[in-house]
């Protein structure tokens, strides 16, 4: 630093310790509560030191929250969203940076517009769209009077009713969250910094566009993909609103939604010890990702917000 000032340095350490404590206090009490019995957790005042029921509570929470099933669901959904977003945005970024075609700017803007509306603001219509993904085709059929047409051609009376219900399915949980303007932009920005010579050399050697994409562009994008994948995994694992609406079947719920069922309500036994064990379990996978892959995580966080 520019000058020495031990006092200010002490103050800075104090501030950071206070900050770190603020982060840790809720986690510590979750751990304490998670290690007590149901009667102990209702004591006033609550013991400030952990008890000895930690692993029993973990087991109980695991079975009560149906976590062996819901964790698997969460992993499928989080990985599905991560992989889907990356593939879809890599492909579209490749298309809009490496090809000249008539509606290139139109496609760019269509993707860009989607940045503006988070899924939360259009909950009801999106739910309808996924509850019956065939709805637009149905209206098209109705408008064109396809049923009448077919009836006239074949001589039979028919009614066209299309239905494709995605409630309680993995595609229903994953697909609506896959389109990603931010990821597309991230890759677009990156592709723009890739030297032109690589593409020219590949073309001279007679590589097809897809060959160039697969053998040159993809390997170059790996660092960006890893950083982004971490952020997307957290995003997918921590989804709340969408799985909440979308999983009426308990076996299709994600871990976060299952955890919600463990919170004591006013009319039930206040089993906060189980709820807190469940909370610790559910936050473990994303917390591990952040702790172990911190450098990549920070890169992803900063990159994906541009």
């Amino acid at each position, binding site marked *: *630093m520019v000058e020495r000032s031990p006092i200010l340095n002490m*103050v*800075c*350490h104090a*501030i*950071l310790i206070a*900050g*770190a404590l603020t*982060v*840790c*206090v*809720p986690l510590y*009490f*979750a751990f304490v509560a998670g290690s007590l019995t149901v009667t102990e957790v209702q004591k*006033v*005042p609550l013991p*400030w030191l952990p008890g000895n029921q930690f692993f029993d509570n973990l087991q109980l929470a695991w079975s009560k929250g149906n976590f062996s099933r819901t964790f698997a669901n969460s992993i499928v959904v989080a990985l599905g969203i991560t992989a889907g977003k990356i593939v*879809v945005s890599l492909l*579209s970024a490749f*298309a*809009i*940076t*490496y090809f*000249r*075609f008539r509606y290139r700017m139109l*496609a760019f803007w*269509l993707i860009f517009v989607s*940045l*503006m509306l*988070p899924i*939360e*603001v*259009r*909950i*009801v219509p999106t739910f*309808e769209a996924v509850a019956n993904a065939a709805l637009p085709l149905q209206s098209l059929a109705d408008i064109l009077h396809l049923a009448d047409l077919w009836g006239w051609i074949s001589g039979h009376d028919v009614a066209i009713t299309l239905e494709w219900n995605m409630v309680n399915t993995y595609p229903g949980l994953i697909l*609506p969250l896959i*389109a990603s303007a931010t990821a*597309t932009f991230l890759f*677009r920005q990156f*592709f*723009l910094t890739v030297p*032109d*010579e690589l*593409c020219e050399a590949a073309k001279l050697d007679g590589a097809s*566009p897809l060959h160039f994409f697969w053998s040159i562009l993809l390997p170059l994008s790996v660092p960006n993909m890893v950083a982004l994948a971490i952020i997307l995994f957290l995003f997918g694992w*921590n989804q*709340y*609103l969408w799985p*909440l609406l979308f999983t009426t079947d308990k076996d299709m719920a994600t871990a*976060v939604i299952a955890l*919600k069922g463990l919170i004591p309500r006013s009319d039930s036994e206040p089993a*906060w010890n189980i709820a807190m064990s469940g*909370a610790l379990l559910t*936050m473990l996978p994303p*917390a591990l*990702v952040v702790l172990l892959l*911190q450098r990549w995580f*920070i890169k992803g*966080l900063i990159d994906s917000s541009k």
Partner: protein
Amino acid sequence: MTLRLSIPWRDTRAPVLQRRHGGHQSKAGTGAAAGGSRTSGKVRRREQEAGLKRANFGDGPGLPTLLLLPQLLILLFFFFIPSLRALMQSVLLSDPFGTNVQFVWFDNFKTLLASSDYRQSITVTFWFTVAQNVLTLGSALVLAFATDRIVRGRSAYRTIILLPYAIAPAIAGILWAFLFNPAVGPLAQVLHWVGIAWDPNLNPTDALILVTLAASWKHVCYDYIFLVVGLLAVPVSLMEAAAVDGAGPIRRFVSIALPMLGPTVFFLTVMNFIYGFFETFAIIDAVTKGGPAGATNILVYKVFVDGFVNLDLGSSAAQSVLLMSFALICTLLQFRYFDRKVNYGV
């Protein structure tokens, strides 16, 4: 849009002096690389389009269409059609079963703006987001300042402070709901012991404070990391010059670092508003469910309740449309941020 915060990550662990000088070099390096590939040094061809590689695979709409198809199809089904339907529903009046539908122009909006529930929701959202914003940004600034001053233990502090990013908003809400639960929560017990009659289940203000705390706790890490990275980019020569002129560390932070961080702070403010408006849904749902007496019934939660619980589709759609306009404004503000970033060069 094309300028990026070029902060070299490798340098963050290096000793202070090297770190800042190293930052400059690699900043210049990435700038040159980016400039070369963007053909700025070369003569632009007439047909050169924005955001298109000079070395491209030419015309032919077939393959690019195929490549774009997955993204565009998903957008069509889950984005454009739903948004259009929201627009349509907002001018229609239908009963919960959808058997009787009427076109009512802007009646849904009129009823909405006249209803006291909606006005209360606006007020609540306003106070919630503003308080959350001030709290989040304020603590992040203080923490970032402290992080920038010290050398020892920096990465340990950073690791801990970043941890809440991994925690789902719903779980953050549950943790805080337990801490301040009037019956069993340890911190609520401390408050009772001090003599404060704390009960977020009954007292509207307490409930709002609780969700604000939970929301801020979860989000400080986001602002913090951007500010820490931003501070690394402040030229050390400026700081040294100011120190020679007799400016103390705090004066330097306020008069030099903070103005240079201006665009970042602006961006973070917009992001905090987006977070407060939309992503805090899970916290509200897990902690208070909008209660007591609508005290934490923020706008996005009301859209959900009216649409899925009260089945008032017209009103819910009208609310969606209003929220969409708000999100639109936020995005435009973000654009402004990108423009500013070009001017300041941070």
